[in-house]
């Protein structure tokens, strides 16, 4: 472990090819290590069956080796430090240096052998979510296999059947282990590279954490009150943009390992769900949508043709999921006059500032000191000002003239003249409007409620 950690520090962001004690492991393949939370370029297959690789948003694909017709991967379950966004590091559990773990890519019909080494402080196992395989390879500790004890390596061997998008996660103390970030994506490419080809293929998982402001480790017992909603354990503005060449056909595969559903919404385009973790959706069954709801434990792949240049958001439409840590019990301050009170409060709390009187945007404008390791609840700067978003939010950057395999951030969209909303500078419009806020109490009862009084009605 120490050696791996030192290696991590010295390589800084490079895809590491560190070896987990090669001598001890014997025939076990190297367990590659990732030290960067940035999106890594697609890993072109150098051996085995050919396919069009995916790009893991803020993640990477695990290298493999071929061994007598077996595709061999090595996953190391271990504690990791994951940066959720610049300014916030978390103590998670993951695989091979990151949470989520690397994407496993293979091809329909591949014989895969996956070595899993447990470097966690407790036993684990891996369940291959959505993949049809022999019962004893399903990774349900206790039911289909013994737990993988601390320090031990287990081997899973099966044939990848159907193509599609799947997930892996522990099925041992999974409440804790998933709350700590143990998960990863599996992409099984079709044997026929011509089957439903796309130009850009992105994959990521949805996960949620409850991390107290100022803390580093998720509260594993949390059920509902999460405060960090992530794409691949990253929150906006830490989530990379997805650069897309104008006219590309784009596929996005999203798996949901949170405890709630997420209606993911795309701007500027219509899309269709083309695949679930159950298989490909026949053309005749697809609905055009701009929002697809991804239920708990589901994987959905949607496709669209990027025919509309610009910077187009993709985000969860539950608006609290596009916020970072925020108080869930703060009263609404909108429209409350603070005159005279702020001074009184400042006598006791000298650093006090009035906030929320107009809304919550104050947050993204004021840049006030926060507890350590805590991201502002809405943040991210765009070319026109604060974007006022956090959590599950990113942007498709659709540009003309990108190279086929170019995933570099092309910068902000340059709008053609006359295509940006602008301020009206003509004569003021004479519109009759109701007063902004009716502050007086309603004069008449709007509805009657039955008083819970014991001695009424007689």
């Amino acid at each position: 472990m120490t050696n791996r950690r030192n290696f991590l520090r010295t390589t800084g962001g490079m895809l590491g090819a560190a070896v987990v004690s090669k001598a001890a492991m014997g025939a076990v393949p190297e367990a590659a290590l990732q030290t960067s939370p940035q999106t890594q370029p697609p890993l072109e297959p150098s051996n085995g069956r050919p396919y069009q690789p995916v790009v893991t948003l803020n993640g990477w694909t695990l290298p493999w080796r071929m061994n007598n017709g077996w595709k061999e991967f090595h996953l190391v379950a271990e504690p990791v430090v994951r940066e959720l966004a610049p300014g916030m590091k978390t103590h998670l559990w993951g695989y091979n240096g990151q949470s989520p773990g690397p994407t496993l890519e293979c091809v329909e019909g591949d014989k895969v052998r996956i070595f899993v080494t447990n470097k966690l402080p407790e036993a684990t196992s891996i369940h291959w979510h959505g993949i049809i395989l022999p019962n004893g390879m399903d990774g349900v500790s206790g039911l289909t296999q013994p737990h993988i004890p601390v320090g031990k390596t287990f081997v899973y061997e099966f044939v990848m059947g159907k193509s599609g998008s799947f997930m892996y996660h522990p099925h041992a103390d999974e409440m804790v282990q998933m709350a700590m970030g143990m998960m990863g994506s599996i992409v099984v490419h079709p044997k026929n590279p011509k089957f439903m080809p796309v130009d850009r293929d992105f994959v990521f998982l949805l996960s949620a954490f409850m991390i107290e402001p100022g803390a580093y480790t998720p509260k594993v017992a949390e059920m509902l009150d999460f405060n960090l909603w992530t794409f691949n354990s990253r929150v906006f503005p830490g989530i990379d943009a997805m650069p897309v060449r104008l006219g590309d056909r784009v596929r996005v595969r999203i798996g949901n390992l949170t405890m709630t559903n997420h209606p993911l919404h795309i701007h500027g385009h219509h899309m269709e769900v083309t695949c679930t973790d159950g298989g490909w959706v026949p053309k005749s069954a697809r609905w055009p949508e701009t929002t697809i709801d991804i239920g708990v434990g589901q994987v959905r792949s949607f496709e669209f043709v990027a025919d509309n240049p610009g910077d187009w958001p993709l985000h969860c439409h539950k608006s609290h999921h596009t916020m970072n840590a925020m108080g869930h019990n703060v009263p609404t301050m909108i429209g409350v006059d603070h005159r005279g009170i702020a001074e009184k409060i400042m006598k006791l709390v000298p650093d006090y500032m009035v906030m929320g009187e107009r809304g919550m945007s104050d947050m993204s404008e004021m840049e006030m000191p926060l507890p350590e390791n805590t991201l502002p609840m809405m943040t991210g700067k765009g070319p026109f000002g604060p974007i006022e978003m956090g959590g599950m939010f990113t942007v498709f950057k659709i540009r003309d003239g990108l190279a086929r395999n170019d995933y570099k951030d092309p910068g902000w969209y340059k709008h053609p003249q006359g295509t940006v909303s602008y301020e009206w500078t003509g004569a003021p419009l004479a519109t009759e409007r109701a007063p902004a806020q009716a502050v007086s109490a309603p004069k008449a009862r709007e509805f009657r409620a039955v008083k819970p009084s014991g001695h009424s009605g007689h």
Partner: protein
Amino acid sequence: MVLLTACASFSPDNGFDSVKNAVNQRTSAEPRWARTDAERGEVRQAVTSLLGQPLTADAAVQIALMNNRGLQATYSDLGIAEADLVQAGRLPNPRFAFERLVRGDELEIGRAFIVNVLSLLTMPARTQIEQRRFAVAKTRVAGEAARVAADTRRAWYSAVAAQEGVKYMQQVKDAAEASAELAQRMARAGNFSKLDQAREQVFYAETTAQLARVSQAAVAERENLTRLMGLWGEHIRFTLPERLPDLPKAPQQLEQAESDALRQRLDVQAAMQEAESVASSLGLTRVTGFISLLEVGYQHNSETGKPPQKGFEVELRLPIFDTGNARVVRAQHTYMQAVERAAELAVRARSEVREATNGYRTTYDLARHYRDEIVPLRKRISDENVLRYNGMLISVFELLADARQQVASVNAYIEALRDFWIADANLRSALTATSPGATTVSRRTSAPSEATAAGH
């Protein structure tokens, strides 16, 4: 007859100088006995000038030692004791008896000049006894002055702390007021339910009541101090400093506290002097126990037709019915009583000094704990809460509730500091002067209760 003129006389200071020294050593203030109008005027002037600036603890003690009228009354004990001493040095006035008897035509005139010889014989012993009594009186008066000084010192700490407490309670009230007002505006804007608003309102209302109580307590403490200093009229408008003195850098080292106390304590000294004085009077009673009265008279009898008879008359009451042993027994018991009292006091002084030493260390450590641990931690919590407020993670109401907690912790420190200074005064008293009385148990009036913090 020359003998009879050898009489004790009054000292110019009535023994007050030794009292002054004893008290001065122990309180670093100087008692003053104002016996004349002129002296009383001087005292009044001195008091006025001491009250010209914010009153320090030492100044308060100084004022009490010269202006507390009860203490002035006690000083008069010196005069009384000295008068007794002077009295003891003087013989009782001789008696002159005159007899005129007529028997028929016989006239008999008897004249007798009778002097109490025993008084004369025992005068040195009685003078010595009275001298001892006078010494006891001086020690007792000094002890009483030291007690008033300690009471005044304690009252000063209590009054200053109470005054500070009012200031902090005022801040809590301000915070509650801001919460209540904000809640009212929030309700008006439609953002708060009547329930939420009423919760903030009731906290404010309760805080107002608490402030009234704390203010009353501060008045009571101040009046106690005023009484001890014997002030009235214009003088009651004295100002107290804003805050208590800081905690000393290090606590006093207290080795041999018990033996120091036995050596220095005025009440112990007085009890020992008392026992000595009783012992000497026991000796006297032993000597004179059966001689109740010995009187010597010079008689001059003249009878009609006879030459005058001259001679001495000695009257000695025979110890037949009263052998005097009752008085001796009484004196013995009185002596034993005095000895046991002195012993009891010594035991109590040792115990008190141990208790006071422990109280001193405990209150010192507690005050330091509040100052170095609790208050900074509360401050840190408040700082962190401001950061949380900045992130809209908590509301302004929680921020204010927390500010109240911080205020309460500062107030708790002030109370701990007050307890220390009172313990310091008690220790001083237990070591050098007199019984400190019941050691003050820390009265926590502003325990930071989590209940008040649960604003939301």
